[in-house]
């Protein structure tokens, strides 16, 4: 991606990204005219939690970004952003918010800067429609997968409580446990609280 120094090269790179598959080349070339390319080194912040929402979003062309959220005491890694994904989309569609997370590059990264005005002034441009549809699909997937994680955590905790009660009662056989997710860690010796179990899942779950 180091040779993205011409509109033609940028358009070619964009067409390789999933959201813009099937979009006519001339529409992708037009999108390039509305936007600029920006390069980041590792560990550079695009924006920080609490910043005014601004008026641009980024489409990742290469590299990786991390979404982090600071709570009262911790900095949580919420998700990774990969090429083809849009970050900071709140700036494009809503007004008056602050950024709800900090986004930092996790590797050398190249991104397309999408100004709010480009979206608002060209609502029927095919490449912009394709990006919006991709964003809708991504949001629907994130909503559903986060909900699935919540359900899974509650089920895990109930199963663990049932198993612990059975052990205390002296049963040899472990009662049926709901299907463990592939990435599940072994049960620790000390029982987890539901909030601790949720924290483990939330830190590692791929919700994209």
């Amino acid at each position, binding site marked *: 991606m180091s040779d993205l120094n011409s509109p033609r090269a940028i358009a070619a790179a964009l067409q390789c990204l999933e959201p813009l598959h099937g979009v006519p080349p001339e529409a992708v070339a037009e999108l390039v005219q509305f936007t600029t390319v920006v390069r980041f080194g590792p560990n550079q912040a695009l924006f920080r939690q609490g910043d005014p929402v601004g008026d641009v979003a980024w489409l990742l062309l290469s590299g990786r970004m991390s979404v982090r*959220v600071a709570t*009262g005491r911790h900095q949580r890694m919420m998700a990774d952003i990969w090429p083809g994904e849009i970050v900071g*989309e709140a700036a494009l569609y809503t007004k008056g918010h602050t950024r709800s997370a900090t986004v930092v590059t996790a590797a050398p990264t190249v991104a397309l800067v999408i100004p709010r005005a480009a979206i608002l002034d060209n609502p*029927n441009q095919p490449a912009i*429609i394709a990006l*919006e549809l991709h964003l809708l699909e991504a949001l629907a997937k994130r909503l559903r997968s986060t909900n699935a994680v*919540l359900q899974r955590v509650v089920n895990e905790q109930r199963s663990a409580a049932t198993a612990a009660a059975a052990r205390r009662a002296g049963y040899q056989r472990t009662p049926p446990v709901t299907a463990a997710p592939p990435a599940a860690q072994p049960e620790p010796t000390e029982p987890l609280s*539901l909030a601790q179990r949720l*924290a483990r899942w*939330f830190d590692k779950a791929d919700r994209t």
Partner: protein
Amino acid sequence: MSPSTDLSAISERFRAVYKLPPGSAEAVASLLSVCELRALNVGEVLFTEREPGLTAYFLLSGKIGVSRRDTRGLSLDVSTLAAPTLLGQMSLLDDSPRSATCTAVGPCLVAAMDRARFQELVRGDSPRGSVLRRLLIAAMSEQLAGANGRILAIIDPLTDFPVDDETTEHGIEEAARVLDGWKA
């Protein structure tokens, strides 16, 4: 649309609630104008949990009660949604069944959009399609951000007092309702 419906005022309220840019109200009004208007009486069910989702709704006036069945099959009131809001759009986006039952808790006015029209608009290049996509993105972004905030509050509470599992489970249920769009 009924002549008595003040579409421009309702559209401006949708624009404000979903924080769309100034000037979007006209496009929202145009979107609502292609919907079928339905008046609901108290107790009338808009849709039922677990049934296939065939229609998306814009609640134009009134309030809708949201209920869900628990693991024992008992109906639990989840929340009450007030106009203006979107309802039932997730089923049309990902073919999922209805995640709750929605019932009018007073006289309501809804604008109904069937699946075919919804898909045509959301994938099309018309101004109506554009504003529909933006309403959906705004609504879903809010749902995700709201639920993430609740989940983080559970994980990292501001007090040193341990929270029991029952309280945590209640918080998780609340976050799930926000994710589904049934609670702000």
